[in-house]
Structures are given as C-alpha cells and as structure tokens.
C-alpha cells in the first residue's frame, strides 16, 4: 500500500530550483534510501515527504488512512502527524532533559497515553541499549547514544513512517552499523523507513529501495536490484591482488576480452566484456599462479550512483 505518493512535484526557493518533476511513491514496509550529493535536494525531498515543506508544483498524496484513499498530504497533515516520525540531520531533543524525560515529553505530546508511552519507552530503551542511561541528561550522552535517542524520539509514538536524514552522520563505523541494524529492527515492527544518507554501503545493506537524487531530479527510484540490473554487466568487476606477478598477469589479461582494466600496482580491477568466459579463463591462472587473494563484485550502490551522475553530466554537456 502506498503511504505517500509524489506526482510531478517541484520545489523552488525563489529562483533556485531545488527539485523538479519528482514522481515516486513510498510503499508500506519499505526501507528506502535516498542518496545524492550534498545540496542535491535530498533534505528537501524528505521535507516534502514529511509535509514540512509544500511543493511549488505537483501533488503529494498520502494514504495513511486506508479507508480514505489518497488525499492531499498538506491539507490533511494535522490528521497524520502522529503517523510520521522525522529524525533530522541534527539531533532534535532537549539536551537538558534526561533520556526518559525527552521520550516521555514527545510521546505524550503526540497524544499517546502515558502508559503506552512508558511501554514504548521501555522497549525503545531496550532496543537502543539506552536503559542504563535513561536518567542521564541528553547532553551528556555520547554521539551514538544521542543519535539513538533522537531516533527513539521519532519513534516513541510508533509512527507508520519514519524519515531519517543522515542518521549515521558523524558516527564511527560500529555505531553506524548499530544504528542501521536498529533501524532494520524497527522496520520489522512495521515502520516504513526513508533514510537519506551518504553512507551508501550501509544503505545498500539496509534498504530495499533507492531514490537517487541528482541535480534537482530523482534520477532513479525503485528496488535496488532493479536499479542495479542495467549496470550489472557493465560494472561487474574482478579484483585481483597480484603482488609481484603483476606484469605476467597483465600480459595474460590483455589476451582476454575486457572493457577496462584498472591497474593499481599490486591490485588490478578487471571489467570483463564477457564475465563468464573471463572467470573461467582466470580460474586456471589463479590456480597456477596461486592468486587466491581475489574477489568478484557486482556493481555497488556507489558505482551505480557514480555511473548515473556521470551519465547526467555527459547528457548535460
């Protein structure tokens, strides 16, 4: 079921076009990653989704209430505010309130009964591993804890849709993974997630859908697998750690059909024209030359994003 649907939505600030002609939808249960360069319009897209910003053109429809069908998001925003949670780039809680106080404050303001909020808080504290810190002032928490608290504040009223803007920003890799795994857990509980982030590997792991925002447009959107498909063949790579056998291997590789070979000294990246044939040929060399330090990779989200943005640049030129 589509929770939110954007139809030819555009957003301008004065003469600056931030987004144009955006058509996409958010299905219930999705974990959607929004990727794009800084200033590409990711945050604006999130703001449009949450109703914080009104579009300059186009329509944004919401179907949170299944019985009503799609209705204008902004006109009915007051009815669905308790169904949306938003965790912006920065932490959005009161630093001088304790963890529990923050959660209780926001939970109650969402109109949830105190008992329910208390229960929600308990489960959130458990999930975010903040039980031991519930009486600490928020400002005294570590960065990762603060981010978890911020997300908890967005979840305390149990929204249907949780929108997160850079949830792993400024966090160390372990914390980033922790946050992402926590979000996955959240999603399992039925919360639809929209996550804008620069951390593409993590998004790739967590999300099932991707919106690629570039140059004021959503260049691609859909399931990651679907988006990846056109790039699979072209961006299939074989990585070999050749160490001192570089020259020998390079001379052999040149006999094989390839699109591109990137020579990084001890490390060679091969973009084969015919992956199956190249792998078969290489297996023999690998065995002979003892080159087991290798891997075969499908195109990453980063590759896809890079490819798409390059294409756009080329098209514009």
């Amino acid at each position, binding site marked *: 079921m589509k929770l939110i649907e954007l139809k030819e939505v555009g957003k301008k600030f004065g003469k600056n076009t931030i987004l144009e002609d955006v058509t996409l939808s958010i299905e219930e249960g999705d974990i959607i990653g929004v990727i794009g360069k*800084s200033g590409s319009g990711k945050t604006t897209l999130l703001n449009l989704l949450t109703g*914080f910003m009104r579009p300059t053109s186009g329509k944004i429809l919401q179907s949170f209430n299944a019985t009503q069908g799609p209705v204008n998001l902004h006109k009915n925003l007051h009815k669905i*505010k308790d169904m949306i949670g938003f965790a*912006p*780039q*920065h932490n959005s*809680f*009161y630093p001088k309130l304790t963890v529990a106080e923050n959660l209780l404050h926001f939970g109650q303001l969402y109109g949830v009964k105190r008992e329910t909020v208390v229960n929600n808080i308990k489960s959130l504290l458990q999930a975010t591993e903040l039980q031991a810190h519930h009486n600490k002032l928020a400002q005294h928490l570590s960065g990762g804890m603060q981010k978890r608290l911020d997300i908890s504040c967005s979840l305390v009223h149990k929204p249907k849709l949780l929108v997160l803007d850079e949830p792993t*920003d*400024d966090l160390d890799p372990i914390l980033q993974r922790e946050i992402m795994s926590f979000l996955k857990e959240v999603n399992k509980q039925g919360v639809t997630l929209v996550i804008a982030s620069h951390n593409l590997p993590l998004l790739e792991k967590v999300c099932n859908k991707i919106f690629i925002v570039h140059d004021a447009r959503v260049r691609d959107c859909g399931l990651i697998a679907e988006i990846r498909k056109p790039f699979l063949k072209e961006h299939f790579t074989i990585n070999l750690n050749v160490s001192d056998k570089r020259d020998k291997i390079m001379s052999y590789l040149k006999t094989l059909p390839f699109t591109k070979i990137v020579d990084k000294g001890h490390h060679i990246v091969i973009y084969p024209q015919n992956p199956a044939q190249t792998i078969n040929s290489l297996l023999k060399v690998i065995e002979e030359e003892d080159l087991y330090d290798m891997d075969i990779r499908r195109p990453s989200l980063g590759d896809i994003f890079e490819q798409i943005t390059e294409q756009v640049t080329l098209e514009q030129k």
Partner: protein
Amino acid sequence: MKSLWLLTKKNLKLLIRSKSSALVIFFAPLLIILVLGLSYNTSSKYGLNIGIYSDSFTEDVTSFMMLLQEQEFKIVKYDTSLEECVSDIKQGFVHTCISVPSSLNVEDNQQKEITFYIDPSKINLVWMIQDTLGNKFDLKSQELSKEIAGNILSKLSYAKTRTAESSAQLNSVKEQTTAASNSAEAVKGTIESIDLKVPLIVYDNSVVETVKSGIVSKVKQSKNDLANARAGIEGATLEEGKDSILSSLDEAQDSLDDVSSLLEGNSSGFGEISVLVESLQHDLIQAQSKLASASEALSSSTSSLESTATQIRESVTAMATVQTSLDEMKSALEAQKVTEADIVAAPLVTKVERVGQESSYLNYSFPGLLVLVIMFSSLLLGTTLVMMEKNSPAFFRNYFLPLRKGTFVIATYLTNTVITLIQLAVILGVSLFFLKSGLPLIMPIAFTLLVSSAVFTFLGMAIGYAFKSEETGTLASISLGSFLLFVSGLILPLESISANLRRVTTFNPFVITEKVVRELFIFKAPFSSVWADIALLAGYALALFAGILVINYLMHRHFLEGFSKHYHKDHIHQQKAQRNNV
C-alpha cells in the same frame, strides 16, 4: 596590530551580516535617540492637567487661570467641590489641584493662601509641579506685590504731593506768622515805648485845703454878711440900718474880694495854688504829649495788629488747608490696609497638601518599582523562553507534533506566568514586611501585575520571535524595557515630553500598570475604579497574543526552514571540510 585589526574587521563583518544584530546595534541607538529627541524636544511647555478649585471664579481667579494657560496647561475647573478635584488626582485625570481663593486682593494684612494638592507618589512630577507652578505663583505673587507696592507708592506719592503743597502753605504760614510775629514785636516795641509814667510829685493839698477852707470861710462869712444885710434890710429902716447894711456889704465885699484875691492868686495861697496848677498844667501837657504819642503808637499798633490779625487769619486758613491735607493723607494712608513688609513682599503663600495618606518614600515608589521588576522580568523571560525554544535542537521536532501553534505560545506564556507568580509571591511577601498596610490590597495588585506581566511577556515573546540570536533578543528586550521605562514618567515626568508623544505614552503598558497599582496601593482605590485600565491591559495582552500567533503562523515555517538550513549548511561545511582533509 594587524591581527587586532583583522579580528576587529571579522567581528564587524559578522555583526553586519547578522541582520538582527545590525539592526539592534546600528539602528536601535539611532531610533532611541530619535524617539527621545522627539520626546523631549520641547521647551517649557508642560502637559500638566491642572484642576482649579475656587468658591467663585472671579476675575482674579480667571486671570490666574489665564496665567497658567499661557504655559499650555490644560485647566479643569472645579466649582462644586475640592474633593472631586482631589479624587481626579488619584484617578490621574489631573496632575494637581489648586485651591484658589475667590479674591486674590490682599487685605487686612493677611496673606492669601493658595493650596496645591499633589500626588506624592509621583515624586518627580511633584517637583516639576512645584517648580513650574511655583514660578507661576511667584509671578502672580509678584504681580500682587507690585500692585500693593504700587498702591503704597501712589499713596506715598500723593502724600508727597500733598506734603509739598502743605509745605508751601506752611512756608506761607511761617512767613505770615513771622511777619505777624514781627508786627507783634513792633507793636510790643511801640507799646513799650509809650511813656505813661506820671511824675511822682506830691502835691501839697493843704494849700488847696487852706484856700478852700479860706474860701469856704470867706464865702460863709460873705454869706452870713449877706444874710445879715438881708435881715437888716428886712428889719430896719433904710437909714437906720444903712450903715449896718453897708458895713455888712462891705464886709461881704471884702470877703468876696478875698475870695477873688484867692481866686486870682494874688494871695499867697492862690500863688501856691497857681504854682500847683502850673505844675499840674505842666504835668498835664506832658501827659497830653505822652498820650498823643501813645495815641499815635496805639494807632500804629492798631494798624500793625490789624495786619497781624490778617496774617494770622491767613495763617489759620493755610493751616486749615494743611490740616485738610494731613487729614486726607491720613485717610489715604489709613486706606492702605497692607502695612506689613512680609505681606507686601509675598502677598500670596502657597501650601502643598499631599493627596492620600502620609506615607514613606518606599510607599510612593513601590508601585513603580513593582512594575519595573515585573516588566523587565516578563520581557526578558518572554524573550528568553522563546529564544530557548527557537534555539533548542528540539525546535524542529515541534513542527511534527500534532499540536496547534498557539499551544506553544500559550505554554510559553504559562511558563512565564508560573515564574511571575513565584516572583510576585516573593516580592509582595517581602514587601508586606515593610508595608504592612498593603495586605488587603495584595490580591488586586497581584491580579493587575499578572495581567500586566502577560502584556510584557507577549512583548518579550514577540521580540524572541523577531530576533535570531539570544544575545540580540535580550538586548532588544532590555532596550524596549528601557524605552518603556524612559517614557513611563518614572525617571522623567511624562508631562515634560512633547504633547504628541505624551498622548502615545499614555498607552504605554508600564504607565497604565503603574497608574493602576498606584491607585490601588496608595489611594486605596476600589477595584471598580481601575477595571477599565486592567481591561485595556488585558486587551493589549490579547492583541499581542493574536499578533504572536500571526507572526508564528507566518514565520514558523521560515524559522524552521532557517533552522534546518542552518543545520544543513553545517553539515555541508563538515562534508566539505572532511573532503578537504581527505
């Protein structure tokens, strides 16, 4: 030096690029100077409403009122009762009441007393009234003093003229009297010169007696002789008796001859008589001569005395004139009732009566201080609370809460109200320690201050919404508070600012609150008499609340967008920095 300059330049740039800071730093002082300049760019025209009470609005009172109106004072006439005027002071409709006697003419050496009724709680106004009106009274007093002195001088001048006239007349009298005196002296001399001395001669009367007796005896004898002769004639014949008769006749002839001799002085007796008579004649001639001289002298003296009498009559007439002049002068001088120098110098005296109960200065200044505290604390609290919320990281999340915007505004107000209530409890509680008489008034005062604090809180909140940083917001709040204080009459009397701005300042919530608290606290006014002002304050609060809601509605998205943009920009900068580091 270079680094100092660079740092200074950087600071200036940052200040200028922050619009609100630039506004506050560069334009606020100009604005304040402009407003204050307009406020106090006035000469000596004070906007005092002066109540004049008099039993009768005579010409004197009217002229006095005209004198006050020259200063553009607004005069309100009270002819029914002084209490009405005094009550209007308490209400603030008039600044002072002046009880003026119906006549300012000073009589019977009694100064005229003009009584000021002033509100002692408006200390600076009291001084201004005393100073300004005191000058006017001095003028009037001088005018009256001048009038009295003029009267005295005119009377003195009249006396002087009359004295000069009298003096001339007295000179004439003097001359005439001198002349009369001289005449009298002359008469005296003349009279003294009359010689009426009779020589002290002892006349020998015996001669005359002798002659007399001789004559008498001779005459007797002659008589006898004649009688004999007659008898002889009658009894005898002529012959027979002729001899005897002839003898008798002879004898009588002899006696008569003797008498004749005696009478002719041929005899020695008559010689003596003759001498005596001659002596008498001589004396008589002498006496005649003396009498003639005396007569002349008397004639001369009479003439002199007549002249003297004339002169004396004239003198008497002149003296009567002088007497009349003196009487007139006396009357004129007696008509001058004011004779005491003190009263001539100051015919009017002013008396200052305080309206309300006699209290300490703390009592009088208490309402102003109370409102001052409430104003600044509410303004700053309002601003701080809004700023705290606006600058709080959680501000952004509030947008996503299913709450009306007004809810946040009301919550901020309620927070302030709670704090204000605590402040009021503390302030009023402590003040009761010093001002025990104020206990029954605590509730209405607290209510008034609460309504007032709502106005100031909303003002502070409006500032909070209008400014970006807490520092500039606080500065703006303090500036606004200072401005409201400055045009409240607490520092400088409002009555001394220009008329147009004075009209505006009457709508100053500080002024209204202070007025209400003063009336309640100092004059013990009933709550019913101040409800209109409280309603006005409540109206302000509601209007400001509505205004804040509108601002909030219009600006909330702007604030949030700015807020998110701010954080987003930070993020971009961080990214850029990270990329640069890599």
